[in-house]
């Protein structure tokens, strides 16, 4: 019997739209969670696969020594694909010339992720390589063709072996971004490695095992392997560990999406809370009537719990359907747009979404529901009576606990959840306080204004308590919206900065000093914007503070227990590209010491990573050997270098006085649109010794990934905006209900509709504007914390939001208020009075 009463009540409430906002809030939270979970999961799957190409594998084990066969066997037993890659420097000999090259010996299967691109002629048409060089063959980078005057079919000697050059190597997925620290690559078959005779004890060789496979298998293998790794010898890497711009972009995007989704869910939860409170309050009379007519408490409980369950299940069902459809549409669009196929989503998202909807609905309606059930029957005679306040603690506990649980559930990070929760609670308290002060101040200002304004101000003041709570939700919604907008803007701008449309896509190396003016002139004639020309002097660092560095640690030494540990330092193990400059290069910042100002004394500035790795500090005296000439300079500054910038970067920069006398070649980078590629030949014809490195493939790959991430972010933003609007709508409706009685009285007393509409509009405009100001303030503060602590971005002020925040607040809240009020006032007075009766 009670079930049919419950169903009848629900049916009519639904029909009359009384539950629309609450249902919409649940639907939205479920839709948002499901679509986001599925979308991010699938997109991330796609992105990780794409990014894995930068490693040429899902995971890479890098080692100074050959790795035990057992590790490879175990990988195979774990159903992982593996490939071996051994990299070392050597001199290559061809056409009676020598050149320093990076030899890369790879086994079948390489690359496990991504593709190797080859051509039949230098700068010829690229195609995807099927397999790897056969035994006796070598694939050689275009730069080496220029350097040694090679042709396909020539023979190149590496160590004791001779190889026939059969292809031009145009793109290797794992080439990395440090184009200037590497020599041209020579790719040979792994089986040829021993034959070169170059792998001797003490040789500086990197042994890499590449792994690919299912993420569970990888995780199991990782858990088995990592305890056996030696920090000094081994390095285990995944895409996320890299210092590539891609890895950082991905991490930031992931954090952004996580945060934005969290905020979206919290907003939707707030909407549920506001709507639930309103729903319960509107049913006070119904409960009083039911109790008066003899309904037992238990029955009333059942009636309303069933209400809620029906509403929740219905909303969750719709939300799941919508969420699934939404992500399918977006994924299809993204797929078409970017020409990629994304992996299927899992059921985890469905559970998460349904759980979130249920949690929101149950926990946020708990207190209003308890109060509702507690309404005394005497309310039929005394309408002032409502539910008891004794559950208030439960309200705070339930809603606070739910928000915390959602934060945790969604982020999977206790620390982040706690930080956001505590931060949010403090912000809410401050917002509450500020809104009270604002209302008080605006009351005084309003006294001097016209009648609609005065009415509005009086209204604000009278409902100060209720208003400050409303303002809290307005402010929170506006703040979160601004926050997500501003963060998105910052992220995109940061990426744009890193990869502007005119980012250099070609690097020039080996430019003779005498050719520099002519080359610069050619660039100017063809309107090609090139970066500065950087002189490069090859040299070795031989000692630190007069103690020789160990460049080549032999296997025996390393394994010997008596090996000197602290006295001797490890060097670079190879020749370095040294440069000189008067000014600090762009994208470099001094982190310690000072940049020189035309100081004739010899000195060097070192990159911070090198300083850390080689344990170098300011004032250390570094000894260099350049072509047999030995000199010593002090370290006078340490630089942070943005390696993701597409420009020449250096570990060691000297002042002009120290290095300019040495013979140098020059390097630079420039941007040339793809469609002008044909000009390259003509451009460099007079400079045959200049080597050109084409970065278009890498840049395109990066751009593509960033485009995908930007789309994902836009999608999240739309969902968060929807959630925000829902909160505002729920709150305006709830607030207007509180004003309803007063409006009816004023209307009955003959107040013209225009006056009432205006006074309500003004009241909401003021509420919205003040909320906007508070929201902007809170947004700037939160953003500063997020930028500096979470996203590693530069903290900036967002002046335009100081205008946008209050204006948008006033406009949106004001017009929502006006709309709701207009609907109310359109009824005739008798209808209004009856509505209140």
């Amino acid at each position, binding site marked *: *019997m*009670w079930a*049919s*009463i419950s169903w*009848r*009540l629900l049916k*009519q*409430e639904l029909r*009359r739209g*009384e539950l629309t906002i609450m249902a919409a809030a649940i639907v939205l939270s479920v839709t948002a969670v499901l679509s986001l979970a599925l979308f991010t999961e699938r997109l991330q799957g796609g992105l990780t696969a794409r990014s894995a190409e930068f490693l040429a594998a899902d995971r890479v084990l890098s080692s100074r020594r050959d790795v035990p066969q057992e590790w490879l066997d175990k990988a195979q037993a774990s159903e992982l694909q593996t490939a071996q890659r051994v990299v070392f420097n050597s001199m290559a000999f061809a056409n009676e010339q020598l050149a320093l090259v990076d030899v890369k010996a790879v086994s079948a299967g390489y690359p496990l992720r991504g593709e190797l691109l080859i051509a039949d002629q230098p700068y010829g048409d690229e195609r995807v390589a099927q397999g790897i060089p056969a035994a006796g063959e070598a694939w050689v980078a275009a730069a080496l063709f220029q350097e040694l005057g090679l042709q396909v079919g020539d023979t190149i000697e590496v160590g004791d072996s001779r190889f026939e050059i059969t292809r031009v190597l145009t793109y290797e997925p794992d080439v990395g971004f440090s184009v200037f620290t590497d020599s041209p690559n020579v790719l040979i078959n792994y089986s040829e490695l021993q034959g070169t005779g170059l792998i001797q004890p003490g040789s500086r060789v990197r042994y890499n095992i590449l792994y690919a496979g299912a993420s569970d298998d990888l995780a199991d293998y990782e858990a088995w392997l990592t305890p056996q790794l030696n920090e000094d010898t081994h390095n285990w890497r995944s895409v996320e560990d890299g210092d590539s711009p891609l890895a950082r972009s991905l991490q930031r995007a992931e954090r952004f999406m996580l945060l934005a989704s969290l905020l979206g869910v919290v907003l939707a939860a707030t909407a549920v809370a506001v709507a639930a409170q309103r729903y319960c309050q509107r049913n006070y*009379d*119904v409960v*009083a*009537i*039911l*109790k*008066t*007519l*003899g*309904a*037992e*408490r*238990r*029955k009333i409980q059942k009636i309303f719990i069933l209400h809620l369950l029906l509403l929740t299940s219905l909303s969750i069902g719709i939300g799941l359907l919508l969420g699934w459809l939404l992500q399918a549409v977006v994924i299809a669009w993204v797929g078409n747009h970017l020409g990629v196929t994304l992996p299927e989503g899992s059921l985890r998202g469905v559970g998460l979404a349904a759980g979130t909807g249920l949690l929101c609905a149950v926990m946020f309606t708990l207190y209003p529901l308890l109060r509702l059930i507690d309404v*005394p*029957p*005497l309310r*039929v*005679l*005394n309408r002032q009576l409502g539910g008891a306040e004794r559950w208030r603690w439960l309200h705070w506990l339930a809603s606070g606990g739910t928000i915390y649980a959602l934060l945790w559930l969604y982020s999977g990070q206790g620390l982040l959840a706690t930080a956001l929760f505590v931060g949010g609670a403090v912000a809410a308290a401050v917002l509450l306080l500020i809104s009270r002060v604002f209302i008080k101040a605006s009351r005084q200002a309003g006294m001097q204004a016209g009648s609609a304004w005065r009415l509005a101000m009086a209204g604000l003041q009278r409902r100060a308590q209720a208003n400050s709570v409303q303002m809290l939700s307005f402010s929170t919604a506006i703040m979160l919206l601004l926050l997500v907008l501003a963060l998105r803007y910052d992220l995109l701008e940061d990426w744009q900065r890193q990869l502007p449309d005119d980012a250099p896509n070609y690097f020039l190396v080996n430019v003779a000093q005498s050719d520099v003016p002519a080359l610069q002139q050619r660039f100017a004639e063809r309107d090609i914007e090139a970066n500065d020309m950087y002189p490069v002097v090859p040299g070795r660092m031989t000692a630190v503070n007069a103690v020789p560095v160990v460049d080549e640690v032999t296997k025996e030494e390393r394994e010997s227990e008596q090996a000197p540990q602290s006295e001797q330092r490890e060097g670079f193990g190879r020749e370095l590209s040294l440069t000189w400059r008067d000014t600090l290069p762009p994208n470099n910042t001094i982190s310690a010491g000072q940049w020189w100002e035309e100081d004739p004394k010899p000195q060097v500035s070192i990159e911070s990573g090198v300083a850390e790795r080689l344990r170098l500090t300011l004032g250390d005296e570094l000894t260099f050997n350049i072509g047999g000439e030995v000199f010593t300079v002090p370290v006078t500054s340490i630089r942070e270098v943005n390696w993701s910038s597409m420009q020449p970067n250096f570990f060691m920069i000297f002042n002009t006085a120290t290095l300019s006398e040495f013979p140098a070649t020059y390097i630079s980078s420039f941007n040339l649109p793809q469609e002008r590629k044909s000009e390259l030949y003509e451009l460099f014809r007079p400079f045959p010794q200049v080597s050109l490195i084409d970065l278009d493939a890498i840049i395109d790959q990066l751009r593509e990934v960033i485009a995908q991430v930007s789309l994902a972010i836009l999608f999240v933003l739309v969902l968060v905006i929807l959630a925000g609007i829902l909160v505002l709508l729920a709150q305006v409706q709830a607030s207007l209900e509180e004003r309803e009685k007063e409006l009816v009285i004023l209307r009955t007393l003959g107040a013209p509709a225009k006056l009432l509409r205006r006074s309500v509009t003004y009241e909401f405009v003021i509420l919205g504007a003040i909320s906007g100001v508070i929201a902007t303030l809170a947004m700037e503060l939160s953003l500063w914390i997020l930028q500096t602590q979470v996203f590693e971005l530069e903290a900036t002020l967002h002046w335009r939001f100081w205008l946008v925040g209050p204006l948008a607040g006033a406009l949106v809240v004001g017009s929502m208020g006006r709309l709701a009020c207009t609907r109310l006032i359109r009824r005739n007075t008798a209808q209004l009075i*009856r*509505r209140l*009766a």
Partner: protein
Amino acid sequence: MLIQTTQLTKNVETSEGILHILHPTDLQITAGETVAIVGASGSGKSTLLGLLAGLDLASSGDVSIDNVNLGDLDEEQRAKVRADKVGFIFQSFLLVPSLTALENVMLPAELAGNKAAEQQARELLTKVGLQERVQHYPNQLSGGEQQRVAIARAFVGTPKILFADEPTGNLDAATGGKIEDLLFEMNQASGTTLVMVTHDNALAKRCQRVFRMDGGQLTEVTGDVG
């Protein structure tokens, strides 16, 4: 005795001390009687009604319905007493806005587990002249029609007692008159005991006994009501 009070009082604590809303009151009403309680606004009439119907708890003294002392019962048991024996009519009608006229009338019967609720409700709505409007919602009915639905609802469980709080207070004179007639007519037909709170002396005169409430003191009016 169907309703009996003994030294029934109601006090509330205010910031200025204890306020005596109802002074010790003794009242006996027998089955089938019609009783009016008149008095100015704020005199304590509705408080007494709330206590008699078990909607509120007394500060001291006893009230019993059909020999059951309401003071000994908890809220659930009092609800049960109301469900079994009491019907209500209010000044503001107090219909459930999301139920139709028919569903509103069925409500008490359904809550009492009466299987024939719908049939009874239809009969009663026909009696009050609303057979054409059974599927209408309260906001689609006029004030008089809403009160007729409320009367039908009050009689659906064939209650022993009907409590009416200013039943015509929200209606114009003509409509109010029709509602009064309907109320007394149905009351007479069912032999229900009627306890009515009103400030309308003319309405009070139609009852067999009239009490006046003044500042929380209840006295029976034996002569002309005024």
